[in-house]
């Protein structure tokens, strides 16, 4: 294969770009970057602006008013939205903790205990698979499992273990947690596993050589080294719960309030054409997300992203 032989129409283009490498670079990197900047960052930044505007009929009118925030936080307005916000935060925190414990355990198993085994990577990918199926359908599936005539209740009744269906399985905070974990567990597993896989085997061997039990190694070596991964996973889960409107509606209950979380409030506001209000709620969620990410960056530095 003679690399110098020219063939085909692209070679003249190639000659041009060989003489002007910068042009090729811009041509390659700018479209995707600009796409993301204009379709993601600009709209998200605009949300912050819109939250101070007002709305007439169907259109947003520029202006400045903190009305939307007041309405959301219940200052001079009914406080039910703020209560939902607090409830969402609570659920987000507990969900993050659950995901942290379970996700860490699984990542530990795959990344440390199964290190070098040929089963490690397939097992890991197994956890990634459901992510690529529809999140709406997965939640629907949980509804089917947990409902009063659902799989769990039918099975328990058929086995004679209960006489009456368990009602708190569905339309409850329990159901919401089950559904959320199903979606966000992989988000927690992967960053933690990534951080764990970078721990040099020699370090683990050294810990054992110095007389450490597996528990010692876990607490004094593995956990500190995987801390960045654990925090990234936590941010994923926390922000994800804040932005989730599907699980509350399908699995949450109207009675204990888990059926409406703040993402549902955004939805309600949009259907009511209260765009500034929706923007205000969204801004608060976004600022929380950005704040957490920046906090992570402040502690660990941007370079860690490259490593992870």
């Amino acid at each position, binding site marked *: 294969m003679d690399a110098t032989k020219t063939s085909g129409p692209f070679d003249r283009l190639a000659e041009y770009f060989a003489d002007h*490498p910068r042009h090729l670079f811009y041509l390659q990197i700018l479209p995707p970057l600009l796409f993301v900047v204009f379709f993601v960052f600009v709209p998200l930044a605009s949300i912050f602006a819109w939250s101070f505007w007002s709305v007439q009929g169907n259109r947003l009118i520029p202006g400045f008013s903190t009305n939307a925030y007041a309405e959301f936080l219940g200052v001079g307005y009914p406080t039910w939205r703020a209560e939902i916000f607090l409830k969402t935060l609570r659920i987000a925190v507990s969900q993050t903790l659950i995901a942290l414990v379970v996700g860490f355990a699984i990542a530990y198993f795959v990344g440390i205990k199964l290190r*070098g085994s040929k089963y490690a990577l397939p097992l890991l990918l*197994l956890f990634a698979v459901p992510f690529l199926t*529809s999140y709406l*359908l997965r939640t629907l599936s949980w509804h089917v*499992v947990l409902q009063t005539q659902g799989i769990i209740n039918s099975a328990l009744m058929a086995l004679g273990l209960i006489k009456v269906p368990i009602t708190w399985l569905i339309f409850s905070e329990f159901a919401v947690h089950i559904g959320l974990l199903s979606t966000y567990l992989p988000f927690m597993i992967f960053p933690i596993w990534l951080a764990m896989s970078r721990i040099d*085997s020699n370090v683990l061997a050294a810990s054992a050589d110095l007389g450490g039990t597996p528990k010692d190694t876990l607490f004094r070596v593995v956990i500190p080294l995987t801390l960045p991964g654990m925090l990234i996973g936590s941010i994923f889960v926390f922000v994800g719960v804040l932005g989730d409107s599907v699980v509350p509606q399908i699995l949450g209950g109207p009675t204990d309030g888990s059926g409406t979380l703040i993402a549902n409030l955004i939805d309600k506001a949009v259907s009511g054409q209260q765009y500034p209000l929706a923007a205000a709620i969204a801004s608060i969620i976004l600022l929380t997300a950005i704040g957490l990410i920046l906090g992570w960056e402040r502690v660990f530095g941007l370079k860690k992203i490259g490593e992870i």
Partner: protein
Amino acid sequence: MTLWKILVAFFVLYILMPPLLLVSISFEPSGFVRPLTGFTFHWYDVMLRTRGLMDALFKSIILAVLTMVITTFLALNAALGYRKTRFKTIVIAIMILPIFLPGLIQGFSLSIVLGQFLGMQRSIWTELAGHVLWALPFAFLVILTSMSVVRRETVLAALDLGANEWRAFKDIEYPIIKPGITSAAIFSFVLSFNEFSRTYYLQGIGPTIPTYVWNKITVAITPEIFALSALTVIISLSLIAVATVYLTMVGRVAEEVTKQETPKGLRILRRREKASTGSALVGNQ
């Protein structure tokens, strides 16, 4: 150790159960949710005859194909450009950030920008924008990872021998990363096919599959919905299996190419490299 295995097995089931359950229900004759009492394609038949449903299926497929083509092209170029820049962290941060942010909010904000400020009606193009945005970070990461297998020496050797950059790419790099590009394309298809939260605010006339299902289940859950859901799951899982096979091929093709070109000394060096990342308690020999 067995305790660990039981625990992890439990969570594997926990994670895999939802999609597989949908498949099981879709074949259940009674139309109720219960363990299989029989096996039937009846609900698939109903599904094929439900007009609105088939329209949604058709639309989802078209959208997914478009997303696949555009996203893969953008991701490939982004990965190629990323390697050349000094500002690697900024570029990666920009490309990856959308994953962190809730889809609902991205869809909402984009719909306002496109609707109120650019005066665009919601259409397949607005949905396409949302889908591409969702798939782009993942495709980018997959292609970038598959590029890391390409040994720099091989490319440099080609350039030394007089090839221009296009030739070096086409004849050396591209064959190696082609499986990676293919699997990135497949992932983009699957991600778009299943995407819901961004599409929700951006949808034009006619729903996609997830939006159709959403509209239906807020009224009532009917059996042909399960047939549709099961079909979606089966398509997604099959494509993922294909993509995974392609991904494993990336490593193997690279091995082949470099085995032919690498002189003996480099090969010994790399064998030593591999040995040092073995099991924790064995150590180096």
